[in-house]
């Protein structure tokens, strides 16, 4: 128990890093994903919209088709070669947001396309503005559709945050790994596992509560 007490501050310090990477990525990438999904959704044949859709499709293809670890290394170690320099924290948020926004954009695109066209038309004939249609009619329905997929990505994000060790940021996993190597014991790694499980348990509970809130309609 004494040993646990000794290493716990370092682990909690690492947990704080894990949490800010998680929270900041989520807060930026979900709204960005919603915005990008509107550009990805087929609808108009306007040349500008088609061009934007093509660019966004390339973006999601690249960021979903390559490892987040590669993207992180590319941003922090690769971009300085061409003169674009990020500090460690900015590089993490930049890479994580671009990666997760690509996933969220595709999830929301699927959600928007799953809403029946007649819902948009009903809103139109009831004289709702485009914003009112999105805010009051479409987004609540899309939210219900995408919740399970978003929940999975949110849990993945907690675990993916451990990748920040590759650019030298001291997160939870790195703190546990250092303690384990230094003291030649498995205890820090077991504690790291328990902390990750606790975090994902809390998120799963939150997800269930939110899904329950949306369960009253089909």
């Amino acid at each position: 128990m004494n040993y646990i007490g000794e290493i716990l501050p370092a682990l909690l310090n690492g947990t704080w890093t894990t949490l800010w990477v998680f929270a900041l990525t989520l807060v930026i990438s979900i709204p960005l994903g919603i915005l990008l999904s509107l550009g990805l959704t087929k609808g108009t044949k306007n040349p500008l919209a088609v061009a934007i859709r093509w660019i966004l499709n390339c973006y999601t293809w690249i960021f979903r088709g390559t490892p987040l670890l590669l993207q992180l290394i590319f941003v922090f170690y690769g971009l300085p070669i061409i003169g674009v320099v990020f500090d460690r924290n900015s590089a993490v948020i930049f890479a994580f947001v671009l990666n997760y926004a690509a996933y969220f954009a595709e999830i929301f695109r699927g959600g928007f396309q799953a809403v029946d066209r007649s819902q948009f038309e009903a809103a139109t004939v009831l004289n709702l503005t485009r914003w009112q249609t999105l805010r009051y009619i479409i987004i609540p329905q899309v939210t219900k559709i995408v919740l399970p997929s978003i929940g999975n990505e949110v849990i993945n994000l907690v675990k993916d945050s451990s990748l920040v060790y590759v650019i030298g940021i001291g997160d939870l996993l790195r703190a546990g790994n250092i303690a384990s190597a230094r003291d030649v014991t498995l205890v820090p790694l077991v504690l790291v596992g328990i902390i990750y499980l606790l975090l994902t348990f809390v998120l799963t509970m939150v997800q269930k509560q939110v899904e329950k809130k949306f369960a009253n309609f089909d």
Partner: protein
Amino acid sequence: MLELTGISKQFNGRTILKNLNLQVTDGKTLAIVGPSGVGKTTLLRIIAGLEDADQGEMTWNGAKTTSEELRKQGILGVVFQNFALFPQYTVRKNITLAPTLSGTSQADADKKADELLNQLSLTEQENAYPSTLSGGQKQRVAIARALALNPDVLLYDEPTSALDPALRDNVADMLNQFKQAGMTQVVVTHDMDFAAKVADTVFKMPIGLEA
């Protein structure tokens, strides 16, 4: 009076509507009839402003207008074939949402909803969600939702097709009650018996159009 003149519409090179003329007299019910695929629903969607006609024009009481203008003035109401109720809202909220978003106070919207719920025998279902309603109830909610905006003309797309045949006469009675109350109605239907029960005028869609 709503009047459409010279309405034409093509889809992918196929002529759906060709030079159609149509008059909808105030306080009367016009039925647009014809077999499936002749463009009845397309015509209704053009009146509602959900499709653009390739040619033709629309007048309202003699003044040239567009569906969009009529909609913005609250003249048109639409009841969809699949009802298109908002699943995330209760029956009452389905009815009050559009009026409140367009500036009506919640109290006035609720008062109007009370009247409509009572008139359409939906009082017991006011807190129910659409997924729990029967087809007939859903249709009445869809009608109440359209009526909540006090339209001058109510458009119905195949109002009997999603309903049990036994409910057809109930719908006809309801439409006739609205007519007696002065509502102008346009009903698209493939059901000639139903058209005969509700319509003052029947418009038969021309069939066999070629590109």
